[in-house]
Structure formats: C-alpha cells, structure tokens
C-alpha cells in the first residue's frame, strides 16, 4: 500500500528535475535554430525535441505514468494514429500552393 501511495505521489524534487529538463530542451532548440540547418532537417529536429518535451509533461506533470496502464493505452495510441493519418492526408493540401493568395 505504501509503495502504491508513493508511486501515485511523485515528489516536488522530481517535478523540479523535469522542469529543469524541459528548460534545457528549450535551450537546445534555440541553439539548433542558429545552426542554420536546412528547413526540413530543422523541422524534424525541433519536432523530435518537442515530442520528448510533450512526453515528459504528459507522464510526470499530467501523472499519466502513475495512472492505470489502461488509461494510457485507451488514449495515446489513438491520438498518435489520428496524427499519423493527418500526416498522410495533408500532402493533398499542397494543391493549395497553386491557389495561394498573392501579396500586395
């Protein structure tokens, strides 16, 4: 029982460590921006770092790590599946490039 209670209540020290980690990732993102990488490479790097940040926030700040696994498996895979579908269907929107508005 004590072990379960401890699992369900992470300490403030752990929260502060996660917060510092998130700040460091933001710093890394800013540094990468000024490395003048090609746009596609920069986007991939920034997205990967943002996903790590999101995972830390969801697991620790939002306590998903401390909930029953059923909650995780009921929510996250389906969200990821929806996002992957968007990734596959959005290229069709590139037709918009031929219809885009022109500047003044």
């Amino acid at each position, binding site marked *: 029982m004590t072990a379960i209670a401890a699992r369900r209540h992470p300490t403030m020290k752990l929260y502060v460590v996660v917060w510092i980690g998130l700040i460091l990732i933001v710093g890394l993102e800013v540094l990468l*921006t000024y490395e003048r990488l090609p746009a596609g490479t920069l986007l991939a790097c920034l997205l990967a770092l943002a996903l790590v*940040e999101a995972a830390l926030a*969801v697991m620790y700040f939002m306590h998903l790590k401390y909930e029953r696994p059923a909650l995780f498996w009921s929510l996250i895979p389906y969200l990821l599946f*929806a996002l992957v579908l968007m990734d596959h269907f959005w*290229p069709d929107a590139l037709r918009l*490039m031929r219809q885009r508005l022109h500047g003044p």
Partner: protein
Amino acid sequence: MSEAATARAGTLTEGSPYGIPSRKLAIWLFIIADAATFGAILFAYGYLRLANPDWTKPFAVSPTIVNGIVMTVVLLTSSLTMVAALAAAQSGRTSTGIRWLGVTMLLGTVFATLHVREGFAMIAAGWRLFRNPMGGSPLFGATFFGITGLHLLHVVCGVIVIGVITLGFRRGRFGAGHVETTALYWHFVDLVWMFVFPLVYLMNVR
C-alpha cells in the same frame, strides 16, 4: 431510495476500468480531442511552411525570440507551480494550495500579456491575417495569428477557470479533484506551447 436499495444499486454499478473519477476521464477525452485539433493546424502549417519557397522569416533574436523564450519559461514555470498547488490540495494544505494557484494565475497572466504585446507590435508593423508587409507569402499572417491566437484563447480560458476553481476551493465548494482536473487542462496548454514555440517562432528566424 432506502439505504438497502442504494446498497443493492451500488453492487450492480461497475467501477471505472481506469480507476479515476468521471470528470477526470472527461477532461482527458477533451484534451485528446483538442490535441487532434492543434495537431491538424500544426500539420497544415508545417506543410505550408516547407512548401512555400517565398516563406517570410521575420523574427529577429531581439525582441521576438527573446520574448518567446521568456514566454516559454514563464509557462513552463506555471506548470511547476500548478503541480505544487495540486500536491498541497491533495495533502489538505488549503492555504498553500490557494497560494500556488494564485502564482499560476499570475504567471498565466504574464504570459498572456507578453503574447498580446507582441501581437500588437506585429499589427503595428503592418502584419494582418492576409497581408505580409515584407512582401512574401500572405499565408504567414494567417498561420501565425491563427495558431498563436487559438493558443492564447486557451491560456485566457485557463486563467479564468483557475480563478473560479481557486475561489471555490477557498470557500470549500471545490475539492482537490477539481484542482486536479484544472491542472490537467493547464498542463495541456503548456504542452501545446512546446510545439507552437519551435514550429511557429524558431522556424521563422531570420
């Protein structure tokens, strides 16, 4: 209904398979739906950004990126104060919880103020939803104001909700469960910014 009937009804009611209150499950479902909304908008932006050869990169280190970094740190810190508020609320330290909720509201207000100030500076520089004063793709204004505006709306709603919950918590009308539900929403707002800042700000540095 008699006590015996209530007890019988209780035995017929299944517990939640997730072991959480229904309001917490509801906010999780809302968060997933809202994440899909932001996901769609950010995917659309990503394709527009990469496919447009004349995409404008208007942001200089100072003031825009410095402002963006400060906004990010403020919002991340507000998540930390929110978990402190929740920890205090769950352990019965009401006054400490209220104090941390107040700090979270203050940080949320600072974030929104910085955001609005930057928006007004861009409007003063001639940016509009479909007008680009630098002569590039007019879609920059639409995506920038659209994405950051939707996020700002979430922040403002969050600050208001935290205020309402804080008042109710102080008066004893709301408990730690309500603080937890609000905290989940607030962390989600923070999480969305983790994608908005690199994709909308850092990808458009000069």
